C-alpha cells in the first residue's frame, strides 16, 4: 500500500486533470495525454526528461531526509540559487584560467553556498527556536534578489550588450556531457549516485536511524541519546548542500551562465518529488522522472492545446493533493488490522 498510493495519485490526477482542463474550455483528454504520455512517447525528448529530473532528484533527496526528521526546509529554491551564485563566483574569479580543478572547485563552492543558506535557519532554529519553515522560505526571496543584484550589477557580462547576465562559462567551467553531443551532463549520473548513497545511509546506518527516530518520536530520540539539535543541523546542511550542488550543476550545465531567469522553481517542485517518492531515495528518482514528464509535457500541452505553462504547477500540486489524500489508505490499514485489546484494557 505504501508504494501503491503514488501510482493511485498519478491516476487520480490524470482523471481530475481531464475534468478540470475540460471545464476550463481546453481539450481535457488531449491535455492530460500531452502532459503525462506524450513526453514518454517521443524518445528524442528522453534526454530532456533526465536533464529536468536530475536537479529535482538531487534536491528532493536532501529534502526527504529532513522531512523524515520533521525538519521542514521549504527554502530549497533559495539554497539552489545560493549554490549557483557561489559556484558562479568561483567561475568568474577563475575566468581566463584553465585546469581540471576549476569545475570541482565550483561544485564545492556551490555546495558550500547552499549549506550557508541553509545554515541560517538551522542556527535560528537550534539557538532560538525559530521555525525553519518561515525562515528558510524568506531566505528564498532574499536569494532571488541577491541574484538579480549580482547579474544586473557587479557580475554583468562586460561584453553582454548590457543584458543582465553573467559571462558564459568557459569549457573548463562547464559540466561535460556524458557522451559527445548529448544533452545529458555529468550532473545526472551524480544525482543518481547521491540517491543511492542516501538510501544506504538512511537504511543501514545509525545516522539514518537517528533521523527516522527524531522524526517519529522526538522524546524517544532524546532517550536513545540522539540530539535533535545535531539532526536539525545535519539535515539542513545536507539538504542545503545538495540543493546548492543542483544549483551549480544547472548553472554550469544547461545554463552555462547566470541570468535572472535562473530560478525555475526546482526547489519547490522538489518538495512534491520528495513526498511523491515517499521520502525514499529510490522512490524519489521515479518521482523526479514523473515530475519531469509533467514539466516537459506541460510545454507540449502549451503548443498542443494552448494550455498556459502555469497549468503544469497546478497539475503538480494536484498530484501532491491526491497523494496526501490517498495516504489515508496507509494510515487506516494498520488501524483496521490492530486488535482492540489496548482499548479494551483502558
Amino acid at each position, binding site marked *: 500500500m505504501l508504494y501503491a498510493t503514488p501510482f493511485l495519485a498519478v491516476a487520480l490526477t490524470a482523471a481530475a486533470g481531464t475534468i478540470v482542463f475540460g471545464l*476550463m474550455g481546453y481539450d481535457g483528454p488531449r491535455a492530460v495525454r500531452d502532459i503525462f504520455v506524450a513526453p514518454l512517447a517521443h524518445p528524442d525528448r528522453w534526454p530532456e526528461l533526465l536533464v529536468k529530473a536530475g536537479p529535482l532528484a538531487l534536491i528532493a533527496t536532501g529534502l526527504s531526509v529532513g522531512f523524515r526528521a520533521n525538519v*521542514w526546509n*521549504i527554502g530549497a529554491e533559495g539554497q539552489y540559487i545560493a549554490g549557483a551564485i557561489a559556484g558562479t563566483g568561483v567561475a568568474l574569479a577563475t575566468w581566463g584560467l584553465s585546469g581540471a580543478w576549476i569545475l570541482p572547485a565550483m561544485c564545492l563552492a556551490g555546495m558550500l553556498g547552499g549549506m550557508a543558506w541553509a545554515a*541560517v535557519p538551522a542556527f*535560528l532554529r537550534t539557538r*532560538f*527556536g*525559530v*521555525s525553519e*519553515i*518561515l*525562515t528558510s*522560505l*524568506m*531566505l528564498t*526571496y*532574499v536569494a532571488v*534578489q*541577491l541574484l*538579480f*543584484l549580482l547579474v*544586473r*550589477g557587479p557580475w554583468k557580462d562586460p561584453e553582454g550588450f548590457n543584458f543582465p547576465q553573467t559571462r558564459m562559462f568557459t569549457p573548463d567551467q562547464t559540466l561535460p556531457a556524458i557522451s559527445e553531443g548529448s544533452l545529458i551532463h555529468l550532473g545526472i549520473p551524480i544525482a543518481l549516485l547521491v540517491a543511492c548513497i542516501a538510501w544506504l545511509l538512511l537504511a543501514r546506518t545509525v545516522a539514518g536511524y537517528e533521523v527516522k527516530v527524531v522524526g517519529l518520536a522526538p522524546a524517544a530520540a532524546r532517550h536513545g541519546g540522539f540530539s535533535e539539535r545535531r539532526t536539525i543541523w545535519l539535515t539542513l546542511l545536507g539538504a542545503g548542500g545538495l540543493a546548492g550542488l543542483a544549483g551549480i550543476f544547472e548553472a554550469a550545465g544547461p545554463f552555462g551562465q547566470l541570468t535572472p531567469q535562473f530560478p525555475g522553481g526546482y526547489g*519547490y517542485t522538489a*518538495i*512534491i518529488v520528495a*513526498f511523491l517518492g515517499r521520502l525514499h531515495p529510490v522512490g524519489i528518482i521515479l518521482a523526479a522522472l514523473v515530475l519531469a514528464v509533467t514539466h516537459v509535457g506541460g510545454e507540449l500541452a502549451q503548443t498542443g492545446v494552448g*494550455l*498556459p*505553462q*502555469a*497549468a*503544469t*504547477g*497546478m*497539475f*503538480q*500540486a*494536484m498530484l*501532491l*493533493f491526491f497523494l*496526501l*489524500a490517498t*495516504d*489515508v489508505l496507509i*494510515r487506516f490499514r494498520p488501524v483496521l488490522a490492530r486488535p482492540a485489546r489496548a482499548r479494551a484494557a483502558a
Partner: protein
Amino acid sequence: MSTALLVSFAMTVAMASTPILLASLGELVAEKAGVLNLGVEGMMLIGAVTGFAAAALTGSAYLGLLAAMLGGLLTSLIFAALTLGLSANQVATGLALTIFGVGASALIGAPFVGRTIERLGPLLPQALAGHPVLRVLFGYDLLVYLALGLTAVVAWWLRYTRPGLVLRAVGESDTSAHAIGYPVLAVRTGAVAFGGVLAGLAGAYFSLELTPMWADRLTAGRGWIALALVVFASWRPARLLAGAYLFGAVMTFELHAKAAGFALLPPEILAMLPYLATILVLTLISVRPGRVSTAAPACLGKAFSPA
C-alpha cells in the same frame, strides 16, 4: 516633511498593511483552533485572481470581493478536507496549497492579463475622502475599515464569547474538547474556512485596489509574511494589528525609497528588506526562551482523529 507627504505616507502604510492584516487575522483564528495552514499565499492568489476575474467580467469591484471570498473559501476547504477529513500532514498540505494556488491562479488569470478594472476606491463620499487632510482618516476603501473592524471583533469574540472560548479550547487540547463533547473537526473546519475567506479578501485587495490588474504571483510572498506575523503577535489580535502596520510601514518605506531613487541602497536590497525584517523579528520574539512555545496553541499543527 509637508502635511501632504505625511498624509500620503500614512495612507500608503494603511493600505499596504491591510492585506497582511486580513490574511494574518484569518490565519490567527485557524491557528487558535489548532490548525497550521501554510497555504495562505495560495489562498490569497486564488482570491486575487477570482476577485479580479469577477470584477473584470461584471464591472463591479464589490462583486469581485464576493468572488474572492468564495475563491478563498473553496481553496481553504481543499485544505480542510485533506488535513481534517483525511488527517493529512498540515505542513505538506499547506505547501501543496500554495503551489496549487500559484499554478491555478496563473491558469485562471491568463485570459485576464492586461485587462483593467475600476478599483474599489474610497468608501466614503468625496467631501470626506477627498479632503486633503481628513482623507488620512476617511479616504480609504471598504477593506481598510473592514480589516480594522474585524480585528476588534475577532479579539472580542475570542476573549469574551462562548464560541470563541470553545475555539480556543479546541486549539489547546483537542482530546479534552472531544472528551467533553465538542465537535473538534467541525470547529477547526469553520476556523480554516474563516481563514480562507479572509485570505481571499486579502488577495483581492492586491488585484482590486493596490495594483488593479492581474499578474502571476501578484501577492509576492505577502502570505508568508502574514504567517510570520501571527507568530510575531504571539497569537494576540491587538499585537497583530500593531505588527501588520509596522510591516506596512517597512514596505512603504521601501516603496517611497524606490520612488525617490534612493541611491544608497540598490532596489534589490530594498526588496529584500521585508523578508530580512521578518526573519529578524521572528528571531527577536524567540530570544526569550519559552516565550513563543507558551503562547502557541498547544495543538497547533497536530492531526486529530476522533477515535
